[in-house]
Every structure is written in C-alpha cells, then in structure tokens.
C-alpha cells in the first residue's frame, strides 16, 4: 500500500498480508512492513473490528463511531475493511444501465442504496463493472447529503485461476487535495482452505 499526502516528503509504503473468508464474513490482516508497524494486526468478525498494537501488546475494539476514520493513515477507512463482505446484505442494488465504453470497455453501472436500518456509513455507492470480465472498474462513494466524497478505481487486471482480479486499487478522496492511496496486490490465491484459528483474537497477538 502506498499512501501519498502533501504532509509527507515521500509516499509512505506498507506491506501487509490478509486472509478473507467471504462466506464466513471474517477477515484478518497482518502488517509486515515497515518494521515500526510490523505485527500490527486487524481481525474482523461480522461487523466487529479489533486492532492489535504490538509494542504495548494490546487489543483494541474499534467502535462503530470510528468506522470512517483512516485505516493505518491511508485514505481507506476502517469501514472499508468491514464493508466488502456485507455489501450484499446491507444495500439494495439497482441497475442503472450499460456504459458502452467506460475507459474503453463495456461496463454495467450499478447503484448500491443502503437498506433501512443497515449499519452503513455511505448514502450511495455507484459501481462500474467490466461486462466481459465481471470485474469491478470503479466505485464512487456518496455521503447522505448526496455529495461525492471519494472514488476508487481498479486496474492491472490479471486472470487468477479463471477470475479477472484487479491488482491495482487506487483510492482518491475528493475533499483532501493531494491525498491518494494505492494498493498493489503482489499475490492473491482463491478458494484456499482456512484454519479457524486464523480468525481469533489469539492470532492477533501471535508473533510470526
């Protein structure tokens, strides 16, 4: 992950590994670099998020009110870690049409609107999906007042075992000039079998 900001003389670089069990709605992230942040870990079970800080060896529960706060100083939020697997449950989906040539490819445009009472932070999300590759191209996030706050664009599509997966994710916040965060995926594997103990608080505190 590369974080660019006018505050930083050079972009900040982080390397991390993540495990994502979509059907179980659980995921786990462990930060590997830089050395200062090595061992920081995040565990998500359903809607709950825990963060582990290695130097003082504490586990913190991240409350819902902090979901829109920055994750590791990036332009991704804590909510972005939690949101993905619950998109189908939390949002109504509406077909907006076909963009004949979105960045040169035919794309479906889909709108996500939050369901009544769903614990979500966005007012609306509009998604462009590559019609041929069934892969996401772009997501635009709107707040409840209908203002566009940030845009996520995907690129570097590679065929991973029959799936087209974007290996480059760039988040651009529209209200913070000069800020941008990109995640480059080095390696991704699908349909792996997980040990249950990956998604435990004990694993948060484990030193590799």
């Amino acid at each position, binding site marked *: 992950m590369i974080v660019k900001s006018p*505050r930083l003389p050079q972009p900040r670089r982080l390397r991390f590994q993540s495990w994502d069990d979509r059907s179980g709605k659980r995921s786990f992230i462990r930060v590997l670099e830089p050395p200062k942040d090595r061992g920081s870990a995040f565990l998500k079970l359903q809607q709950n998020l825990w963060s582990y800080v290695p*130097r003082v060896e504490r586990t913190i529960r991240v*409350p819902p009110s*902090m979901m829109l*706060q920055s994750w*590791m*100083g990036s332009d991704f939020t804590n909510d972005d870690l939690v949101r993905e697997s619950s998109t189908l449950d939390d949002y109504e989906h509406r077909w907006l049409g076909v963009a004949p040539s979105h960045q040169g490819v035919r794309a479906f445009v889909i709108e996500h609107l939050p369901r009544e009472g769903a614990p979500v932070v966005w007012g609306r999300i509009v998604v462009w999906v590559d019609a041929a590759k069934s892969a996401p191209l772009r997501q635009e996030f709107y707040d409840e007042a209908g203002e566009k706050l940030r845009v996520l664009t995907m690129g570097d599509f590679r065929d991973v075992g029959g799936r087209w997966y974007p290996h480059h994710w760039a988040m651009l916040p529209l209200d913070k000039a000069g800020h941008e965060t990109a995640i480059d995926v080095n390696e991704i594997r699908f349909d792996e079998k997980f040990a249950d103990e990956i998604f435990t608080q004990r694993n948060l505190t484990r030193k590799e």
Partner: protein
Amino acid sequence: MPLIVRLAWRNIGRNKRRTSLTVAAAVFAVVLVVHMIALTSGMHDRMIEDNVRMHAGHLQLTGAGYLEDRTLERFVRWTPALAATVDSEPGVAAAAPRVNGFALLSNGPASQGVALLGVDPAREGGVSTWPARIVQGEFLDGEAREILLGERLAEALGARIGGEVLVYTVAYTLENAYELFRVRGLIRAPDPRLERSLALISLADAQALFAYDGRVSEVAMLVRDPARLEATRAALAADVAVHSTEPLDVNPWQRVMPELAQLIRIDDVQNYSMLAILVVVVAFGILNTILMSVLERQRELGVMLALGFAPRAIFRLVYIESLLLSGIGLAFGLVLALPAAAVMERHPVPITGDIQKMTETFGVTPVITWELTAWNPAIATSLMIAIALLAALYPAAKAASARPVDALRSL
C-alpha cells in the same frame, strides 16, 4: 435666563402636583432603564467571561482557515520566538498553546472515540478553568504519559485513577500512533456529551504522539481589556505574522463561538424592544400632562398670540416645558439610579440553592452582576430627550396653531 425659559419654568411650577407626578414617572423610567441596561450588560459580560474562561479564550491564534477545517494540516509553529512575541504583546494577559486531535481510547474490551486535547500544564490555568474542573485526582503537572479523562468517559471506559488506558490515533505523519497513559485525574465538562468524549494530555506528549514536532493547533489567549479586543487582535496579528512562515489567523471569541455572539445579539434585540415599549409608555404620560396644560391655558395662549407672540415662540415654549419636565426627571433619576447601580456593581448578588448548582453545571458563575459603562447614562439621557421631543410634538403644534379669536372664546 431668556424670557421664554423663565416662562416655561413658571408654567411647570403652576400645577406642582401634576408636575411632580409626571417627573416621578420620568424618574421611574430612568431608574428602570439604568438598571435594566446595567443588569443586561453585567449578564452578557458574565456569559462572555465564563465561556471565554471555559476553554476558548478571548483570542485564538491558529493556522489560516483552522476554524473552518480543524485538521492537523493547519497548525502554528510554537517556537520560543513566537511564544516571546505573544507574551510580550501588551494587550495579552495570558496565552496557552494546545494540540487538538482525535483518538481512540481503549481500556480492556471498552473503547471510545474522543477529542484529545494537548495542553501546557504551566500555561493552561492562566487562560482556562480546566485545572479548576478536576473532580478527582489532580491536574497535569508535566509528568510524561499521564491523562485526564472526562468523568463520564472514565465511567464508559471503566477506567480508574492510577489505571492505564491506551491512546490510539493516526499521527501527522500518517503513521499509526499509540501509547499507554496513566489516568491522573477526572475532569468535569459543562456539557455531558463533551464530558463523554474528552481527554487531556500534556502538550509535549501530544506533540510526540501526533509527531507534531513543535507545532500546535491553537494558542488561546486572554486579553487585559476586553473592551479593546479588536485593537489587541489587530496588533497581535501584525506582530505574529513577522515570526511565522505559514499564514496565521487571530480570531476573536465571536468567531470561535458564533453561537454565543448570536445569543447575546438576540438578547440585546429583546431588551431594546422592551426599552422601546417603555419609551412609548412614558412618552404618552408626558404627552398627557403637557396636552392637559395646553388645553387649560387656551385662553392665556390666545391672549399671548393676540398680544403679538409669534406661533413659533409658543411652539418653543411648550417644547421647553416638555424638555424641562424630562430633564428634571432625568436628573433625579440618574442621581437615584447611578449610585445604586455603582454599589451593586461592586457587590454582585450571589445565587444560592438549587439554581446555584444548576448554573454551575453549565459552567456559569452563579451571581447576578451589574455593569456600569459610560454608555449607560448616555443611553438613558438620549432616551429621555427622545421622549421629551416625541411627547411635546402634538401639544406644541396644537398650541402654536391656535387662532386667537377661537382660543379666547373657547373658555
């Protein structure tokens, strides 16, 4: 004394009882106006001082645009040179630098997002009353990694004095920042919601945590003379501009707390509407008196006109009578009201009982105060002159327009 003034003076002396009743009404109005204005301005001053001392200060030095966008990007470099400039500014009584940030506080399974305030323990008490609002434990004294929690926040976190809480945030350098802090004291805020989400640490710790390196978010200041706020603000803004590479703002409390400034303006409008109604009521009283005396003197005025008195002189005569009545009322009123108000100014009335507790919870000093300024008698005087001018208009016009023949025949 010109003839016309002597005439007017004698005229108002003819019916002593009527005159003294009218003067009494004027005196009453003056006393009411003086005390009402003194109480209102005393109350407003109290509100402003209490709020200013609660946290904000009279003036705030911040990075340009900080009030609209309270982020770490907008800062003041709190260098020794800048501190010396602020401290040597003649209008500034005290200055306290602060770092304002957000953090997640965690204690065991409990966690809570808070406004994290970094304060200079040696300077903060000069500006705000935070050190006085400790309900348990002690205020910060510069010891590293100690934290004060709002009473309700401590309850929500299950934290106790002497215990450790984890402070977790994102630094200015966009790195994850976290540190364990020992709870040194519990603090009470006037607003329960604020108390649930407020924690104080030392300025040095805040600068280390946020990797803020000599920067601060704001410098809150008290001024020596609140009446000269704008002059002090302008002088300070000019002086600090020399010492800073970044553009800075110096904002008065009215911009920092616009809701307070608005509240006071609304209250002023209400009070001046009340005064306007009072003016109309008293004006009608005086109008009544003068009109009566003019009607009684129809025959006399007719004779004066017949003897060659100009209508304009009659008009003036009636006007001078009205001004004399109000003038006497004003003089007696001020003599009665001003010393009393001056005594009350020195002896504020304390509020006791349940109301005392209630006002203290809101951070308001439980006293009723009078405040006398030069404006006070000036406003009372101009109101009475306005009353005299208004009230005499119709009777004077009526007296001046009388035709001698009709006037002589009318009685």
